[in-house]
């Protein structure tokens, strides 16, 4: 009787050999490439005369620098244009599929690979992007790598790695109305800290995750990295298989049943042994908003900004730095904090279900974007945009004063024209509230669910989405 985790099974299956250093050489089943972290890797391949032995295991797109308004080439930003030219040439030279804008398949790399059926259970997935953890939602072992490692994957389809420990994060129960997958992961980060997961893979288990859609699971796994865990995963189940069935790169016909049988076999065994287990209750989770400069600085929307004394002493300096940077004080309620910009999108929350829920709460609220707020909605991919427009979501957004954009990473990291200005405060459905993250060195970010961003945009301040939902329920 086996008692292995999914991580153990996938790791062992993909281990090529033990290297002389004692590290493992691990095969990478799916390698994704984008324009920002790959050019130096390709340059190094050329310099060293290395070939790409498994080009069919890599797929590329462009997302970080792509403008979401005017996408006409050449881009106004010459540096961005140079990167677009480079990835096109690199993919051509090495025979790698590239999903360009206009192909119908372009978008944020962590949105398009699942959407196309490229991400599948039991794979090892790597990409020069920390949010590669997203793909763990399918029961894949998926992690971010740097550019030298991108070169190694291109040259050998393998990496030199050391095995991670596995921590099970068990959450059971139903989420309350107005509480979303984003709130679940922000809550976990708050409880386990931004560095609590260093050295671990997180297995998210329990009835709360079993009840989630694939898109919700992707939101959770996406932010495992914000807790220090290089990868997070959820065991594959019928919801996973239903999501994959019929997608372009998913197994077809007679292969489908073979695939499902294997996918079922790689899930953690019932008696799997974990290095650590943490348990939480879904009922304790409120709509959550970050107030500080790290994704673990979250509070329930009904709470106040915590006193530094509620943190470990070696965190006090960081907490004081956060109060100062955010211009917020301990004891001040988070609800009511004024915002200047509202952003819905990113690899965390730029999927169709995120946009549907945002549109739903906007309609329930009925108002328009507050006069002092700039609000914009960025679909995570061209495919998401097509579906959203077919459903008329774009018209809802525009009618209520939101801008409707093209697919890209946009203001999540602001490597493109979408940026905060000066000390602006944004309500953002993205994943990082680091200092300067959204393009202004002094800009401030409050992370929250897309529904909470939508309501913040309409009210001009942090507000509890449940007020809108409860009013509608009574009406």
């Amino acid at each position: 009787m086996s008692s292995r985790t999914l991580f153990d099974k996938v790791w062992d299956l993909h281990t090529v050999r033990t290297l002389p250093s004692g590290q493992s050489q691990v095969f990478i089943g799916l390698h994704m490439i984008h324009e920002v972290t790959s050019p130096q890797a390709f340059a190094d391949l050329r310099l060293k005369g290395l070939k790409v032995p498994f080009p069919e295991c890599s797929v590329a797109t462009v997302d970080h620098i792509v403008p979401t308004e005017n996408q006409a080439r050449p881009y106004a930003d010459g540096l961005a244009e140079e990167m677009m030219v480079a990835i096109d040439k690199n993919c051509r030279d090495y025979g790698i599929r590239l999903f360009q804008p206009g192909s119908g398949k372009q978008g944020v790399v962590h949105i398009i690979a699942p959407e196309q059926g490229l991400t599948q259970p039991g794979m090892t997935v790597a990409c020069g992007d920390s949010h590669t953890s997203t793909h763990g939602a399918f029961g894949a072992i998926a992690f971010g790598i740097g550019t030298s490692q991108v070169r190694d994957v291109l040259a050998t389809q393998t990496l030199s790695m050391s095995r991670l420990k596995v921590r099970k994060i068990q959450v059971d129960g139903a989420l309350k109305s107005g509480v979303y997958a984003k709130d679940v992961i922000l809550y976990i980060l708050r409880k386990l800290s931004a560095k609590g997961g260093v050295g671990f893979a997180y297995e998210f288990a329990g009835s709360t995750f079993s009840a989630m859609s694939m898109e919700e699971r992707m939101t959770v796994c996406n932010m495992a990295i914000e807790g220090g865990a290089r990868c997070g995963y959820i065991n594959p189940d019928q919801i996973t298989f239903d999501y994959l069935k019929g997608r372009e790169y998913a197994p077809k016909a007679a292969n489908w049943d073979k695939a499902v049988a294997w996918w079922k076999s790689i899930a953690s065994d019932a008696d799997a042994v974990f290095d650590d287990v943490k348990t939480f209750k879904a009922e304790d989770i409120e709509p959550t908003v970050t107030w500080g400069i790290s994704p673990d600085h979250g509070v329930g929307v009904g709470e106040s900004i915590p006193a530094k004394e509620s943190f470990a002493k070696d965190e006090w300096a960081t907490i004081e730095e956060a109060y100062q940077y955010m211009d917020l004080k301990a004891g001040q309620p988070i609800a009511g904090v004024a915002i200047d910009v509202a952003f819905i999108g990113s690899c965390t929350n730029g999927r169709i279900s995120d946009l549907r829920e945002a549109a739903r709460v906007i309609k329930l609220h009925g108002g328009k974007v507050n006069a002092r707020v700039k609000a914009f909605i960025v679909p995570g991919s061209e495919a998401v945009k097509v579906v959203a427009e077919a459903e008329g979501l774009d018209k809802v957004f525009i009618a209520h004063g939101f801008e409707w954009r093209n697919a890209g990473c946009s203001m999540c990291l602001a490597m493109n024209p979408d940026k905060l200005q000066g000390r602006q405060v944004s309500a953002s459905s993205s994943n990082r509230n680091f200092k300067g993250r959204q393009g202004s060195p002094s800009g401030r970010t409050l992370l929250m669910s897309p529904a909470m961003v939508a309501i913040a945009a309409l009210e001009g301040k942090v507000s509890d989405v449940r007020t809108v939902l409860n009013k509608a329920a009574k009406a």
Partner: protein
Amino acid sequence: MIEIKQITGRAIPVVGNDIDTDRIIPARFLRCVTFDGLGEHAFEDDRKQLTAQGKTHAFDEARFKGASVLIVNSNFGCGSSREHAPQAIAKWGIKAIVGVSYSEIFFGNCVAMGLPCLRVAVADGEAIQAAVSKDPSLQVSVDVDKLEVRAGSQVWKAQMGDGHRKQFLTGQWDATAELVAGVEQVKATAKKLPYLSAFA
């Protein structure tokens, strides 16, 4: 293969937990196709902000110019996987990092670049920072072989995983050649993967 056993030089402290890679190198500097020129932009926004407040970031202090050992606190390099962050630090002149803990991806990038990151206890990290702040001319030795950090008569115990330590000591931190050498085994592994064979 370049063996990395010990780095000795003057040190520079960058104080704070959870210093993320956006702070080490803001995203606007990632609009590039080479890593050239990143060194001068390391910690750029933090530096500017401190200057505006009438304070000085360590990277702007003349007394730390020419340092080759960076002393940090916990969860250094968290966030984005951008190798541009350790590249910027290395191009500024840093050859070794000593700190309490590192984000996994940052650490992996540093290994692949040949930039050893040693771990020390919380109090020791603070003590080393205090020592070099007091005397920036202090020669600090980062010993990957003995796993210790030395300055003057002081010695601090340090840690690094065995595999990574061996990679530095034998020059195999640049894993590419070794990974390429395993090509036949790589092909054999690929053949066993159901998604590349049975139901591909």
